[in-house]
């Protein structure tokens, strides 16, 4: 039999709270994780549920500022076991936390008010571009700011920045394509006019050195992709089959 660790499920993976798989995330990031009624749902939530099921525990969502996830603070403070937050794997973040195998491909995209004629970063000269704090989109926007002559306006979360486009506080917002397309679908007065090929991959984060959990996550992801469960979840949230895995 496997040794019973503190707060372990029957799988031998040590957990922060016994019987629970606590997921750190930053709400809202629709459709990866967001509130619906009294529940938090989304693509990431369903994926992590697979992990939880495999561990024989239930998933619990812990909402915390995004910077505390990417900096590893949440793990160091033992607030959660893993982080699933539509989070791109970057070298910088790898220094603070460990990532699973990639589970989603993303590019950066530009959301604008319909009819604004902003189709590229160059069209934003002298205008304001909204970003979400600590995202790869923010980094992309900052890296290209000097060349295109726009001002970067930072928001604490995705909905605030999206609303800023609708109220006119900013002229455009840059973020991952998945979330912005979803928003434009819901609010037809906005549209996504372009994508930037950044070739990003989302990963699930764990505390540095937590290989037991990391291995488990990678196993579950691999299995799901093989047995079609991943495709089912993908279709549920994006309305189409994944083009690549």
């Amino acid at each position, binding site marked *: 039999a496997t040794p019973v660790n503190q707060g372990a499920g029957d799988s031998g993976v040590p957990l922060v709270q016994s019987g629970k798989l606590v997921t750190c995330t930053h709400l809202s990031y629709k459709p990866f994780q967001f*509130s619906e009624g009294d*529940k938090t749902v989304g693509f990431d939530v369903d994926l992590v549920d697979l992990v939880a099921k495999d561990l024989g525990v239930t998933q619990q969502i812990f909402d915390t*500022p995004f910077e*505390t996830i990417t900096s590893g603070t949440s793990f160091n403070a033992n607030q959660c076991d893993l982080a699933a937050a539509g989070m791109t794997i970057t070298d910088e973040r790898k220094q603070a936390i460990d990532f699973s195998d990639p589970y989603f491909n993303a590019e950066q995209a530009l959301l604008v008010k319909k009819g604004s004629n902003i189709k590229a970063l160059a069209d934003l000269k002298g205008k304001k571009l909204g970003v979400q704090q600590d995202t790869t989109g923010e980094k992309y926007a900052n890296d290209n700011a000097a060349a295109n002559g726009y001002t970067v306006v930072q928001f604490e979360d995705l909905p605030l920045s999206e609303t800023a486009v609708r109220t006119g506080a900013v002229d455009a917002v840059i973020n991952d394509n998945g979330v912005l397309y979803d928003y434009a679908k819901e609010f037809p007065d906005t549209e996504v006019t372009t994508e930037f090929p950044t070739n990003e991959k989302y990963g699930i984060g764990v505390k540095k050195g937590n290989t037991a959990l990391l291995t488990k996550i990678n196993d579950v992801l691999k299995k799901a992709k093989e047995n079609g469960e991943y495709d089912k979840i993908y279709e549920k949230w994006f309305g189409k089959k994944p083009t690549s895995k």
Partner: protein
Amino acid sequence: MAMSKRKRAEYIRYAQYGILLVVVVLVAVLADWGQIQRAFFNVDIAKSMFPSVITVALKNTIIYTALGFGFGLALGLVLALMKLSSVAPYRWIATVYIEFFRGVPALLVFIGIYYGVPIAFQMQFPPLTTVMLALGGVGAAYMAETIRAGIQAVPKGQVEAARSLGMSQSRAMITIVIPQAFRIILPPLTNELILLTKDSSLIYILGLFREQYELTKFGRETLSRSPSLTPILIAGLCYLIITLPLGYLSRYLERRGTSGRKKVSA
């Protein structure tokens, strides 16, 4: 000066009503009322918030505030007595604590606690304990000043009378000063409870589970699904359910206190 003062006062009155009318008409015309109605009072969204906004969010706000207030009051009393102590280091510690926490925004303190406490003490407190430490730590600084001022506001003559009857300093403190100080500090303490209720809107920064959402976090979450101001408005009204009665209580206690004391000195 052709018209009497009374007539002039009447005209001024008319003018005041006139200005009011003009302003009301202007606002009515300038604002886009259809848009406002859609944006502010979306009945469907409002309905979807119940009952959780009460059973979860309001309840949590009250719990967090109560925990913070309880801890803050205890710590505040200790700090107040330290500040009145004859031992200088106690006074210094209390002063540094009070000045720091009164001078720094609560949000920054919460971030500091979120990052700092686990690092410094290598331990993880349960979420409710962290909330209690954060809110209470901020509240204690305010309450310490209130309690100290309350103790000092008890007229010196009361202690002198007690001592001239043979009571010791500490006996006079317990029997005469503290009971009277308590009546003096009740109104400001109630005000600090209101401040704490409002500060509880910032503990989302500590990270929360869904069952732990308080009103502001709950309102923001609902807002992010439906960009209508309705969730914010409803959360705001829920705060008023707590803060308005407390405000009236505070003013009532203050009035009662003042009139009581006025009579004594008359």
